[in-house]
């Protein structure tokens, strides 16, 4: 006997997706909505209808796991091959790895933080659509944290500066810049987190924060990191669509949400932009083979794509470009020079090395920044004389940090390249210092939050960092000889030469 099954009336893709995700939802009747979703009312955001959330992508668990498993198989094959063939020797130079040290110390722990907090959204958002999108992103983010660690793990075996990145992320002065940024987002409510990370970090600034590292990798022979970057691309594009859907959803739900969202855009643009100071100096100074200048990146990825594109669309909702964006546009001419100058002088207390740019490098910077770099070139020429006289310049004291972004107060007024910018606010009788109008604006809106900041310099003075003297603090940071200071003559520099000489002798590589 044969039974011919009746031809099923198939659900459309959208109906099927809905049946597999949203339809799992029900309204609780044994507990209140407020008990079920206790975190979505205190921020003042009004949502009338969660079902209006448009799923930014339609992925089911079977499709997600299949696709991601295939991507990881390819990525790990590249990592294994690179490690086995001593691929690190074909980098442009060991100094390139300073960019990757900064990435592992400063960025990978943020991916992990994103993983944890998207899990929070996967529990606490009222709508099943955004919960499932957040769940997928939470998984993607642990993927990124782990694949970055695995990608850079091989460099750690041969080069300084990588070995204690987690310990350092929670303690070292320049790493409190990215750490405080993400702690800020994690300590906010779920809607602010969506705007802070989902929108500002993953959409508005992702091409400035993340992509320069990956492009730098591809220009400098770092095949594993480049492969990781490509492998993360399809995840990132999902995250970008989620961020965009999140902001549109909030804006469409109620007009009262518009000023709140505008404030968060103001705040998180500047917060994220300040973190990009580390990226700016990396692009302009740390890459042996340059990709593009910070100025060029900022113009392309921010001015053209965001101001010229995204914000034109958001104007429909009454959203304007972030406050202080004009300052960032002015700063593009000198941000990287000032940031690197700060790091150069403090790199004896960092887990990366710095060096005076070569003449060729300075010529490139002059081409890129004809109006501003000549000023900084005179600083470097002077420093070269110091070095010739045996006095490479390190600052032995401790800098004052901005209360909000936590970068040492070394940025200048836009029109005055030698006048340090300094703003201050008094809150409950205490004076707080800021590097910029943007950081002051952020503090003034939430002084109770920002006065809690764990400022590395204050902490050292308060005796919370192992010792009162520099060697003691560096020890507490778990820094080892060769991690920081001048690149030329450093452990990495010496090993690099030695390994390449060996390769020349044996005819390998």
């Amino acid at each position, binding site marked *: 006997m044969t039974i011919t099954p009746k031809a099923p009336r198939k659900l459309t893709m959208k109906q099927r997706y809905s049946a597999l995700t949203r339809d799992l939802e029900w309204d609780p009747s044994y507990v209140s909505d407020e008990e*079920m979703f206790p975190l979505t009312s205190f921020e003042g955001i009004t949502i009338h209808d969660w079902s209006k959330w448009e799923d930014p992508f339609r992925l089911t668990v079977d499709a997600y796991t299949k696709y991601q498993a295939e991507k990881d198989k390819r990525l790990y094959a590249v990592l294994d091959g690179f490690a086995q063939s001593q691929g690190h020797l074909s980098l442009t130079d060991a100094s390139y790895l300073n960019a990757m040290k900064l990435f592992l110390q400063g960025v990978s722990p943020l991916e992990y933080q994103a993983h944890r907090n998207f899990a929070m959204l996967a529990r606490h958002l009222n709508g099943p659509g955004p919960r499932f999108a957040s769940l997928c992103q939470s998984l993607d983010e642990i993927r990124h944290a782990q694949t970055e660690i695995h990608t850079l793990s091989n460099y750690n075996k041969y080069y300084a500066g990588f070995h204690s990145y987690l310990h350092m992320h929670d303690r070292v002065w320049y790493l409190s810049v990215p750490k405080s940024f993400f702690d800020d987002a994690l300590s906010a409510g779920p809607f602010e987190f969506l705007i802070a990370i989902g929108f500002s970090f993953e959409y508005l600034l992702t091409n400035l924060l993340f992509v320069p590292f990956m492009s730098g990798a591809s220009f400098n022979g770092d095949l594993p990191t480049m492969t990781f970057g490509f492998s993360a691309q399809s995840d990132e594009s999902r995250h970008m669509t989620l961020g965009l859907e999140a902001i549109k959803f909030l804006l469409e739900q109620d007009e009262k949400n518009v000023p709140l969202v505008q404030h968060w855009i103001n705040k998180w643009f500047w917060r994220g932009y300040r973190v990009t100071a580390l990226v700016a100096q990396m692009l302009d100074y740390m890459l042996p083979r340059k990709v593009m200048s910070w100025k060029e990146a900022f113009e392309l990825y921010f001015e053209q794509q965001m101001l010229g594109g995204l914000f034109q669309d958001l104007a429909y909702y009454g959203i304007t470009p972030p406050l202080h964006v004009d300052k960032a546009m002015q700063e593009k001419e000198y941000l990287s020079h000032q940031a690197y100058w700060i790091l150069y002088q403090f790199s004896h207390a960092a887990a990366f090395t710095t060096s005076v740019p070569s003449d060729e490098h300075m010529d490139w910077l002059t081409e890129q920044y004809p109006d501003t770099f000549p000023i900084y070139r005179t600083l470097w020429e002077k420093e070269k004389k110091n070095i010739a006289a045996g006095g490479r310049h390190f600052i032995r004291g401790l800098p004052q940090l901005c209360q909000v972004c936590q970068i040492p107060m070394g940025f200048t007024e836009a029109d005055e390249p030698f006048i340090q910018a300094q703003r201050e606010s008094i809150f409950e009788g205490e004076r707080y210092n800021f590097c910029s109008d943007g950081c002051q604006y952020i503090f003034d809106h939430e002084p109770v939050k920002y006065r809690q900041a764990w400022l590395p310099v204050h902490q050292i003075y308060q005796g919370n960092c192992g010792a009162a003297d520099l060697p003691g603090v560096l020890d507490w940071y778990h820094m080892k000889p060769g991690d920081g200071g001048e690149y030329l003559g450093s452990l990495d520099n010496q090993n690099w030469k030695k390994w390449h000489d060996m390769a020349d002798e044996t005819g390998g590589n």
Partner: protein
Amino acid sequence: MQFELRTQVIEPQRKTFQHLIDRYGDRPASRYEEGTIDLQARVNYHYRPLWDPSKEIYSPDYSALKLTDAYSFVDPRQFYYAPYVTARADLHEAFGATLAYLDKRGMFQRLPAAWSSLFQDVVLPLRHYEAANQMIASGAARYGWGTSITQCFAYAAFDRIGNAQILSRAGISFGGGTAESLDLAKRTWLEDEAFQPLRKHVEEMLVEKDWGVAMVASDVTDRLIYGLFYTALDDAALNAGAASYSLVAQHLSQWFTDQRRWFDALYKAWVSDPELGEANKALLGSIVSTTLATALAALQPVAAKADGLVDAGAAASLATAAEQIVAAFAALGVTVETPAS
């Protein structure tokens, strides 16, 4: 004979990251270890959460169940992201193959009528149970302490949506490619009297703020549900000629075996903690006693409903599953009160 490939030998400066050398000694670390141990920050948080200024961003105090050293627990499956998604891709591919077979052979239509009713009215509504467990596990993945633990929760959360989708896809096939069966099952979940004690129990687990309590409650309930529907009834289905029931159930019981591996290791870590073990045992005794009584009472009407449809001894199987839970905790040194049946 081997051919000899000459490669440049460079002695590495170190075998792995320092925190792993400190913990495990100077040996190369696995990718699981590099991607898990110490990933979560434990000190120097910058700001208190706006949603709970009494706590830090991460804190062991989000649950009463604690470990002296969070990383005394490691996932016996050694799952970091890549092996996790690979394992789940296999599971869903296998289920997809099953479903294709069931569709091709019209297997759902061949279910004996009583088993067909059981699938529609008792099993399909459980996809909502799975979805709720995603939320519980996601909450635990955020508020838990230590990556080795929270990582298991994060994957478990995704698993639960995956399980809900397995049931939903089976339900779509069962409904001839439509959502009719799923709609019907949702009404059962929401309105059928037999399901209301279970739904109440699930909603109460969802609002439990202590992630440890919530996860243990979820696990105890899982053991009853998986023991009954995907193990005991699986056997009965085969005996009754309801092969398609068994073919679907095998994927869920296979998943539950995997879930047990890490959860049992976590229980072991909790009770054998050198400092907190005794306190954890007492806590577990109280959490499990309460939950087992509630969950058992909540599931008895569902089992009775099953018994009204098929002759598979559901009520008896449920009681057996409860006894096994009491025995399993006793083996860990945790005293659980035997619930009244």
